[in-house]
């Protein structure tokens, strides 16, 4: 049984998704989806445990040996992210039970859970597989289902947002498949580790270089690296809150994983160094992205858009860690992947609870909510503090590692810029705080109550995780370090 964990992780949600359509009673489908996601989470716990103690796991799909058959391979890097994605997904699903009842018409609930599980399948599949083409397939599964998840709400603006995302996402996916095709042309293999062995022989060829180029642009579209981020703010702002919470916490993170996997495990850092000035490009785009998106966040009137821009900025930090091209820098990136997922999941779920109560995500409607919904608001503030990087939150841990990595590289002006940028985060977070606590409400809102327990509990689990992993960093720092070491060690 445990031997099949790598595939069960993916196949269970995949099979469960169509089953939802048979069950059809929304309440039961919801609970079923939680169970499925929780199973995936338990499996990922087992997997990570096994990977840490016993080393990399390789699973041959259908018993076909590796370069010909599809291989699933779990190492520390994807074991860690599998845990994150399935864990966040489960918590978000718990909150979804009540949250979607206000944001989706009753007859779409079953479809929502179906699409959600498919999206989860896609994300877990991308992480687990060691086959370049299989990865593309899962990328499309997750992308197509997330277009649905975004458009499924009652907000009609979500339709255009989803369409925008569809166009950009498809371009990205096309670029990725062109890259995969070109690599296949040169090496005749699709298995990642086989590719890694065969590629050095053809490093000089222009075909490999263009494969790499297509590939980088395609993935950067997916992960919304500035200036390819234009689809993200609208998609996050108009999607149902649960979708936003799930996608913000997981989908861009998985895209970053793909980038890391391709750079380190397939092409190898030497190839990247000699072919493209990728470090400089990432440094420039990461920094610009941080500043442009953070400043844009200050001016948003819709709180979901505000935090969506903040997500773009946070992706900048993640990419900046990659740009350093050292083990410490990669550790910082991997840490921030995990930590940022915790922050944004908490914040967007809390926003979802507000939408559930007042039906709006306009910042001006938050006036005076500090008194009406104290626990939800405290969660938003806690998430915001984590985003700023206040000590005792996960944000501080990320920032600490990023600054140490930058100093280690000797890039102290960049370290200063990173710290300055976290002050811009103070500005946009504090705009929210002032609306919540210091602005008198414009309308009499006596009927507004605190969010229901079914949402408060998942929100606060995430908030406490933000604090817990900000103090006890053994798991996050430990695994990130090991993963970074092995990624650098391989090459």
């Amino acid at each position, binding site marked *: 049984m445990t031997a099949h964990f790598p595939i069960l992780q993916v196949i269970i949600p995949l099979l469960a998704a169509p089953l939802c359509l048979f069950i059809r009673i929304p309440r039961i489908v919801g609970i079923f989806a939680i169970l499925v996601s929780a199973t995936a989470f338990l499996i990922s716990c087992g997997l990570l445990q096994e990977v840490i103690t016993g080393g990399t796991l390789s699973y041959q799909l259908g018993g076909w040996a590796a370069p010909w058959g599809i291989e699933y391979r779990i190492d520390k890097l994807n074991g860690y992210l599998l845990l994150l994605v399935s864990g966040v997904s489960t918590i978000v699903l718990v909150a979804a039970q009540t949250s979607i009842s206000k944001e989706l018409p009753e007859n779409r609930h079953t479809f929502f859970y179906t699409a959600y599980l498919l999206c989860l399948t896609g994300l877990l599949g991308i992480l687990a597989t060691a086959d370049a083409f299989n990865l593309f397939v899962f990328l499309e599964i997750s992308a197509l289902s997330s277009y649905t998840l975004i458009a499924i709400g009652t907000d009609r603006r979500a339709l255009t947002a989803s369409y925008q995302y569809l166009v950009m996402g498809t371009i990205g996916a096309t670029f990725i498949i062109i890259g995969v095709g070109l690599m296949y042309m040169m090496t005749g293999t699709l298995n990642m580790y086989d590719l890694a062995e065969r590629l050095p022989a053809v490093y000089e060829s222009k075909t490999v270089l263009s494969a790499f180029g297509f590939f980088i642009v395609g993935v950067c579209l997916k992960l919304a690296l500035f200036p390819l981020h234009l689809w993200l703010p609208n998609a996050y702002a108009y999607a149902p809150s649960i979708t936003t919470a799930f996608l913000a916490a997981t989908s861009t993170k998985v895209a970053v994983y793909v980038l890391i996997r391709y750079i380190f495990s397939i092409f190898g850092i030497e190839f990247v160094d000699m072919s493209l000035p990728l470090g400089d490009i990432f440094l420039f785009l990461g920094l610009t992205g941080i500043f442009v998106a953070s400043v844009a966040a200050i001016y948003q009137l819709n709180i979901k858009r505000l935090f969506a821009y903040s997500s773009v900025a946070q992706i900048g930090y993640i990419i900046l860690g990659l740009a350093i091209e050292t083990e410490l820098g990669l550790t910082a990136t991997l840490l921030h992947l995990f930590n940022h997922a915790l922050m944004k999941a908490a914040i967007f779920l809390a926003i979802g609870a507000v939408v559930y109560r007042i039906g709006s995500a306009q910042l001006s409607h938050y006036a005076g909510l500090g008194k009406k919904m104290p626990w939800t608001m405290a969660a938003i503030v806690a998430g915001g503090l984590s985003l700023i990087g206040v000590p005792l939150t996960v944000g501080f841990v990320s920032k600490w590692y990023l600054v140490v990595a930058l100093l280690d590289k000797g890039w102290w002006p960049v370290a200063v810029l990173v710290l*300055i940028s976290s002050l811009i985060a103070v500005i946009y977070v504090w705009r929210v705080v002032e609306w919540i606590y210091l602005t008198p409400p414009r309308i009499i809102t006596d009927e507004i109550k605190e969010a229901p327990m079914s949402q408060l509990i998942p929100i606060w689990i995430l908030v406490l995780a933000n604090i817990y992993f900000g103090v006890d960093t053994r798991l996050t720092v430990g695994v990130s370090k090991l993963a970074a070491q092995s990624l650098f060690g391989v090459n």
Partner: protein
Amino acid sequence: MWLAPETLLILTILVPLFAVPGIIAANRFPNRREGVTITASIILIYLVTTLYGLVQNGTSIAIKGPALFPGLHLSFEIEPLGMLFSLVAGFLWLVTTVYAIGYMRGHHEKNQTRFYSCFAIAISSVMGISYAGNLLTLFIFYEVLTLSTYPLVTHSGTPKAKEGGRVYLGVLLSTSVLFLLLAIVATWYTAGTVEFQKGGVFPPETAPIITGTLLVLYIFGIGKAAIMPFHRWLPAAMVAPTPVSALLHAVAVVKAGVFSVLKVCVYIFGLDLLRTLPSADFMLYLAAATVLLASIVAMRQDNLKARLAYSTVSQLGYITIGALLATNAGIVGGAMHIAMHAFGKITLFFCAGAIMVAAHKTEISDMRGLGKSMPITMIAFFIGSLSIIGLPPTGGTWGKWFIMTGAFDAGKWTIMIVLMLSSLLNIAYLLPIPLRAFFSKQAYGKPVQIKEAPLPSLLALSFTALGCIFLFFYTQPLYELASAILQ
């Protein structure tokens, strides 16, 4: 003794924190709520005095908490400077609570539960700062202190409070994130440790350019020490209710700043290294400029709290000077001035609040002749002023005396002149207030009758005023504690 010293140390941080749920639970019953705060502060005093006894007997108390990063723990250690700071803050918390009961009720303030809760969190973080065993722990509690006092600054919720809150948070957070955090990370990177150690942490071969830059980053980064040009937050914080200004913005928060400066100078740089740094001289003169300029600005303020705030900026400069002189007397003087100035300034703020509650006056020009209706308050104000100026028979004399000696030892004549000039300015902006209150005619021709502040407030301000005089005669324990820093 039935509790281990380490447990006592942790309890000093936890007791104020545990008071918070109690305060919130007693939301609807003001007497019970304030009862919780007072009980917690009495327990805290018991704890810090017990710890003081243990430290006197030579017990060394240190705790290594969980590791935040590999090799970098949350750690606590009691050394004399931290002991002194926690004693001052612990004692004055009780006094301020008593005062606040009179003030907050007399002033009909809203959201008093939030007020007392945030106050308790702030005190808890002050305890964390005093006993921090390394820079990381200090930084964590430093930031908690900033955040927990923000709701106190914006307590009234008016647009002015919002504005003040922005300046407060803006200056304190940006200096700490931009300079202090960078300095801490860089120290960790160059020295490999951020533990407070006698004689400093930097290996002798560290380039002076690095240590010199780091010193500048530390001094500016500790924005709570209010060295110009990063002092704007302190006047901005004066929109807070007076007990906040009294305890936090005359004692706890600002002293956390200068305390950190002293701590960094003694235990991170070490006096020997500090003496050789050219940037130490530069910062010294900047602190001297702060002392003078803030005094001059203070003279021009008509709002009493604003004048006191600028006076605080100026007095904090004294302590920073004491630290940067890098002489034994300077350090002793700086440490003693933390306690002396605390008693003096809290008295003045208590009086300002009492005047606000009883006579509804905030401007100094309206306070003429007030001595006839508020004699006790005005006498206390007089004593507090003497202590700030540094005249006998008040405690403030000693702090300034030792800082002066420190400047003499270091041969810095300019600093000595600045200190003397500043004392003259202190006289000019403080003494006229009580003198005019007693010897001028009343501003408005109302019939004179005694109308003092509510009794709890009056008791508190008399207590601290007497404390100022007491500290003049009974300085020995304080001096011993301060000089133990250097052994």
